[in-house]
């Protein structure tokens, strides 16, 4: 049977290096959780509902609903810095 040798059409991927996530909290009571609206579709309405759930079920958690400063394609160091300095955790949404 005749066989052919052919070249791969695929490009060259970069090396992947492990990134370390932040340490988890030992609980949410007394903590400030930022709900970060990525401004995609109706994320703000969804996160408003999540904020209401937290108020009803985890009343010891302080929540802040914050919209990112621009589109989700852009980095937003001002918002990230605010969360680091004034908050303890973040919930980002909603990816589509």
């Amino acid at each position, binding site marked *: *049977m*005749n*066989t*052919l*040798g*052919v*070249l*791969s*059409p*695929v*490009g*060259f*991927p*970069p*090396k*992947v*290096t*492990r*990134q*370390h*996530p*932040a*340490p*988890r*909290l030992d*609980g*949410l009571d007394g903590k400030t959780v930022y709900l970060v609206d990525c*401004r*995609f*579709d*109706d*994320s703000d*309405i*969804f996160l408003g*509902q*999540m904020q*209401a*759930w937290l108020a009803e*079920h*985890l009343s010891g958690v302080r929540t802040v609903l914050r*919209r*990112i*400063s*621009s*589109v989700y*394609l852009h*980095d937003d160091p001002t918002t*990230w810095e605010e*969360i*680091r300095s004034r*908050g*303890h*955790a*973040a*919930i*980002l*949404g*909603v*990816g*589509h």
Partner: protein
Amino acid sequence: MTLETRYGVPTVAVHTDMFERVVRSVAQVNGMPGLRQVFVPQPIMGKTPAELRRYVDGRDPVTGRPVMQEVVEGLTRPFADAELGPAEFERSTPRMLEPDTEDNLHRRFLDNRWTDMLPIVLPTEARVAAMLAGTRRRPDEIVGRMRSTHFREHWAYSVETVAVNAVMAGARPEYFPVILALAATGVTARSSSSSAMAAMAVVNGPLRHEIGMNAGIGAMGPYNHANATIGRAYGLLSQNGQGGSVPGLSYMGNQGNGYAYSSLTFAENEERSPWEPFHVQHGRKPEESAVSVFSGVRATAFTLGLRARYWREHVRNLLRGLDPNGPPTLLLDPIAARQFVDRGGFAKKNALVDWLHDNALLPAGEYWDYQLVQNYIYPRATFGEQPWAAGLAAAPDALIPMFRREDIHVVVVGGETNGYWRIMGCNYQKTVSVDDWR
């Protein structure tokens, strides 16, 4: 991921379930396979607060566990070592595939989704070597990098990688400099956007004639070998060079886009145009050959000619039919282009662009309510970017421009069998030299 790694903030990301494979894959290739991600049903858009509350109260459709339990655990449960993944890993791309029969190789290319589902030419060493003779560049030279979306990693590709995909598309060596120039733009023709984008490529300069490209009858259709195979090669190189375009994983276009088969590649009809060529508008000399790429090709509006009495109204109607996030590029048959000169007095393309900008208007209330304006333009306006920020102050009934002037373009193409013309909603990206890749 930025919040986790750079700011040390424990974070949970919430996505819709349709995007599970995508976001897990993105987390993995960014070195955080255990990133805490929670899923809710698709869609979010258009749901009432009560319906979205049911998402919050409900279960993650991927895991079956309560959504809020996963959110709370995601912020508080420590990571197990296994969740962190390996310290690093490399993925290699072998230059050659294992030899096999012709039928089996065709099957392998299809199974690996390396094709556009149409038959390809198998890239043997001899065929790739013949393609490489179309440029003076070294085979191992890196031409550029691409990715299917903002959050994915860039993959690199060499002159030889581009040649392999050019062979697969059925291109001839004399077309190779155009294909290399397209590759060098780094603009993918296989965006993963759920909006189902395609690309468009316009070739200018003497090379159009040297390689027999078509700017006349049927220029945008399947009637010219160079047009068809250059565009196809650009698409194949994009999907393979960037590491894939797989539905549900690295391609999320909800309806797909037929323009993606050819990446709408054609030559501008410079000889019959009343205006300067497109590449000259973008800093190239008339005697240079260049290719210009557009992304986000989705919307098409069309009409025939310009009527003496109501042409302005007709053009405004076409413009209003576009989404404000997809600015207009007019593709004018030479007959229509001359009508714009005769009826509108647009002796220069820029005068026509000015008129289009000033006449593509919407009431501010309607404009800001478009979903894509809300997603992509309103955030930039609130961040102070002009000219959008100025539009925020307009009363809801006040007419404001739908598009930025610099996003409106005009290209002349067609064979004068009639004065049909169209508007493509798309985003001009850049113009690059083809001569540099000869």
